[in-house]
């Protein structure tokens, strides 16, 4: 190492080298900076241009939208012979016999909460087929009795949570889930997963999509053997992601639909999703597939009737809808039929069916107000009193703050001339993540009524990007599948 003399730190030559390096770095940095004053203009100008391009790209992406049309998939929806209940009548017959058997058990062992819970379950099952609110009311009373008879640390908590979700009573559902979580014998993983998923449902109905999504993921982790694809599909559809929703519905059909009825309901939901993005023909095929899977179901008949009317075959649509209204006494079907008659300009027929529906909605509002008030508001808006519609929509919004409830409220507000408030409600739905053609269509309408031509045009574009058929006059006929 002889002859090598270490240079002291900070010596003049090294400092000079360091200064030179710094100078070079500085020079390089300066080379990137604008050298002339006018070049400074480019910075904000570029920012403005970037904003404009980003906006243009965002609008283009929205306008291109999902366009893939789905058809009923024979492989995914294949009907296995061992699936129970070949058709609606068969299912109804089984529900009736289950009910009669459960009623006998309660009669033979009065005061036993497990048997009362079984009878309540049979009533709920029958309700899901018939929409008979008397059955639902009896189920609620039976669950209350079962609670009274159950020893501390037990009780039909989970069943009550299911019942509360059916009646849209979110507070009761939450309390029941709390009760289920505090039972003396901890629920198994499958029940715990379902409880978590139900909390997700509650969050979704309250307008909190993020929490709903998190709960569904947590539920899937709690019991990996269970499928929560159906719920994920509903969430995706609420977000306007129809491709994902349809894929998840198909997965739900494979993974969790163990009956023809369940598969038919999933086929209907896919049809509704297709209709929501303007694929009426595909929707009709899915409704027909649902009929093949589970023939004779009134809910399927109502969807098919509506699809026929939307496709222009008003006579066939009316005939089928009238069959549902007459045979099953559903007020939704009566309202849909009244709207078909209104669309045809037949006031007498329209009012006749609307009046029949009004009487049933009045009865249902007494039996299960939380479950009926949104539908009753919808009826009032089309055939009744706008002020009453607003009161019902407001009551509904007080318990459920999801996109559909805000849209109903906005439409009631529009009917009462409160456009600014309607726009706020719709904006809240969009801010919370809801995307649908009816939301943007209502936004457009409210903006137009408020005199905001640009706002109306902008919302109209967004509505059309989701569903190109949304502003067609026939859309008023969509009572079951507005999506």
């Amino acid at each position, binding site marked *: 190492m002889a002859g090598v003399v270490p240079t002291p730190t900070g010596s003049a030559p090294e400092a000079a080298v360091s200064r030179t390096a710094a100078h070079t770095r500085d020079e390089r940095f300066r080379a990137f900076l604008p050298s002339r*004053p006018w070049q400074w*203009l480019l910075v*904000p100008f570029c920012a*403005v241009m970037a*904003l*404009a391009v980003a*906006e243009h790209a965002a609008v283009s992406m929205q306008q291109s939208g999902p366009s893939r049309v789905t058809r009923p998939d024979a492989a995914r929806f294949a009907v296995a012979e061992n699936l129970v209940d070949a058709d609606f009548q068969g299912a109804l017959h089984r529900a009736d016999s289950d009910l009669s058997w459960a009623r006998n058990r309660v009669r033979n062992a009065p005061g036993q909460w497990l048997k009362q819970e079984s009878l309540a*379950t049979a009533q*709920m*099952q029958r309700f899901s087929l018939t929409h008979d609110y008397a059955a639902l009311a009896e189920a609620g009373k039976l669950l209350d009795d079962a609670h009274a008879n159950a020893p501390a640390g037990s009780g039909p908590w989970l*069943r009550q949570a*299911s019942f509360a*979700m*059916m009646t*849209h009573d979110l507070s009761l559902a939450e309390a029941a889930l709390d009760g289920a979580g505090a039972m003396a014998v901890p629920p198994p993983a499958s029940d715990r997963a*379902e409880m978590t*998923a139900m909390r997700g449902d509650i969050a979704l109905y309250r307008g909190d999509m993020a929490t709903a999504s998190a709960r569904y993921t947590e539920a899937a982790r709690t019991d990996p053997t269970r499928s929560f694809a*159906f719920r994920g599909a509903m969430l995706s559809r609420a977000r306007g992601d129809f491709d994902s929703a349809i894929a998840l519905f198909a997965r739900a059909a494979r993974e969790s639909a*163990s*009956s023809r009825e*369940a598969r038919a*309901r999933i086929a209907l939901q896919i049809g509704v999703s297709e209709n929501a993005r303007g694929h009426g023909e595909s929707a009709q095929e899915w409704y027909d597939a649902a009929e093949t899977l589970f023939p004779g179901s009134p809910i399927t008949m109502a969807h098919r009737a509506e699809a026929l009317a939307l496709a222009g075959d008003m006579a066939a649509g009316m005939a089928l809808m009238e069959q549902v209204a007459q045979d099953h006494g559903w007020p*939704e079907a009566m309202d849909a039929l009244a*709207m078909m008659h*209104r*669309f045809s*300009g*037949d*006031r007498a027929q*329209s009012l006749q069916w609307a009046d029949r529906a009004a009487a049933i909605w009045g009865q249902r509002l007494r039996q299960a107000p939380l*479950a009926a008030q*949104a*539908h009753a*508001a*919808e009826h009032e*808006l089309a055939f009744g*009193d*706008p002020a009453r519609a607003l009161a019902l929509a407001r009551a509904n919004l007080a318990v459920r703050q999801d996109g*559909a*409830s805000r849209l*109903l409220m906005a*439409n009631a507000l529009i009917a009462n*001339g409160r456009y600014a408030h309607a726009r706020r409600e719709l904006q809240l739905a969009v801010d919370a993540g809801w995307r649908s053609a*009816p939301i943007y*269509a*209502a936004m457009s309408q409210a903006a137009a*009524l*408020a*005199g*905001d*031509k*640009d*706002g109306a045009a902008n919302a109209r574009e967004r509505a059309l990007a989701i569903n190109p058929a*949304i502003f*067609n*006059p026939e*859309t*008023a006929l969509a009572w*079951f599948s*507005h999506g």
Partner: protein
Amino acid sequence: MTFAVLAMLSWSESAFAHLTPNSEVTLHLSGDRVEAQIIVPAAEYAYASSHRAGNGETDLADARKYLARRITLTTADGATLPMRIDQLRFAQVAGPLDLLATAYFPLPAGKSAGPFSLRWSVVVDSVPDHFALISLADGGESRVIGAVRQTDQNITFTPDPSMFTSFVRAAWLGAIHVATGFDHLLFLMALLLAAPLAARDKRWSRVRGLRESLYHMGGIVTGFTVGHSVTLVAAGLGNWHLQTGPVEALIALSVVVTACHAIRPIFPGREAWVATGFGLVHGLAFATLVAEADTNIAHNLPTLVGFNIGIELLQLAVLACVVPPLLWLARRAQFAPMRVAGGAIVALCGCWWLYQRLPAVIA
């Protein structure tokens, strides 16, 4: 039945009301009459009236009687104007059949200034979710003045205000916006804060002379004015639809940058150019505001100019209050700490706005 299956069945059909076809009425005012062009969806007419929608003689007579009973126009003193319905027919304009008609209301002498009150019960008297959109034609354009529906079947309107009134209203809107939109003013104030100073070796080193300072300030204010005027007019006339979130965030950023510049020179001597550049961004915010507040101002050059003049007048008023004390203070020893403190406060405000506005950009 498992809980999961019950849960699937518990998802009910949502209810949120329907889009139904509605009526449209466009009012034209001329010196001697009011003309109303009417479009009513034929099915809604047939449903509401129980009449047939057709072009037969009886059907048209029924329609004429139906409309005549449900439309009245009155003057400010309550006098009902006579009405003549013309060009009545059922025809397809776009989509299904419509009932089309034109109603004429001759005006008595001296009554053309309005206000007028239109009572409209066509269809809405018996259909709760039907409304008629009422527009007022103004040259080739028409603007919505409101709607009538079952709960409110009256609407009052006056002919369009004069160009001068519109101009003054636009100027007032511009002035109010700048007076209440502190970000625009703080951006300008931050630029002016260091305007009496010249930089050397990346520090504010000397105080400019009075004339030089005024010249420099004039350049900044002019640059800002030119910048925001260009984008305000371009966005208004070009009907740009920029999202407010990113624009507002950029404005907050402009406040932060200029506030930092007031503390330590970042772009000394180029303030006028920076004011022009960021002025372009501020102009976009003005355009968004004016489009939200009044679309008639937004797409009309004279009213846009009025809006801009309102901004400038308010700006000049603020400058008249701020510049003299600033020039006086700049020659005092305490100015340096005051400038740094002022710059820091403005920078903090800018950061706070940036923090508030960035989520909208990310979303």
